């Protein structure tokens, strides 16, 4: 089984690093989507089936908080696991996002091993259901 994964970050190089990490980790990927903000991400989610979203918080046009809020209000999108990959350090905000269904949180700078381990856990869990 291979997965469709969406990476949402306004930094192109961060998207590249995450993408390389997923490839090197050997995670079976069918299609890797990229978006530079939440608005573009929601459009991709409307048009494509995605198994996992890895998203930053601070982005222009639409940030990760608003993107997660909108996903939580949508019957189908709220079932897609979201991992936040951000410089955000506020536990208050992280807890708010967890309450909206965010599965995990990775603080920048991250290690490839952490991303690999989290993605494997979440996709494994999804597969087991």
């Amino acid at each position, binding site marked *: 089984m291979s997965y469709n994964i969406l990476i949402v970050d*306004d*930094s*192109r*190089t*961060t998207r*590249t*690093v995450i993408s*390389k990490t997923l490839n090197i980790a050997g995670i079976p990927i069918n299609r890797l989507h990229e978006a530079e903000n939440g608005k573009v991400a929601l459009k991709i989610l409307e048009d494509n089936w995605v198994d996992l979203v890895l998203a930053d918080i*601070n*982005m*222009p046009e639409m940030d990760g908080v608003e993107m997660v809020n909108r996903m939580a209000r949508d019957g189908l999108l709220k079932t897609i696991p979201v991992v936040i990959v*951000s*410089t*955000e*350090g*506020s*536990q*208050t*905000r992280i807890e708010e996002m967890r309450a909206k269904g965010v599965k995990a949180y990775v603080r*920048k*700078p991250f290690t490839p091993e952490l991303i690999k381990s989290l993605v494997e856990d979440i996709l494994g869990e999804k597969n087991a259901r």
Partner: protein
Amino acid sequence: MWKIYWEKKMLDEHKTILSEVSRDVLMRYVFMFGEECEKENIMPDNLDYLNVYVAFNGHCEGRVGIIAPAELCIEMAANVIGTDIEDCNCTDDAKDVFEELTNVICGQFLTGAYGDEPIFNLSPPSISEAGELNWVEISENDNSLAFMVEDTTVLIYLEIERR
């Protein structure tokens, strides 16, 4: 209008946190060793510079910025992407990595200085080209720190709005 935070005790505390966070993020994000140095002993490297800052608001308002030689930013980009300098999309990648570096340092500084309870909103990074005059101006401010990174000098500055 951005103002320098003058309260001596807090300024020293913030400088210590900013110094530790910057060293850690330079190592873990761009894989470069940065060592804080005395500003009295530094001179501009006669190079083109990039200046980027990330503004924040919430618990308090201010910005964290970095001014570094453009050539160093290209090396940073090559390190992050894991490629040779010749193979990276120099200008765009260098700016992108430099912006992200500042963003990460700003986020880590805020947690270090104010803990993990307050919510801060960070603006998208603002980047511009800078010259020797900008470098000298920032180096002379009390709110900047100097780091030796790969034999060049990088200035990291913090401005917090006085309330």
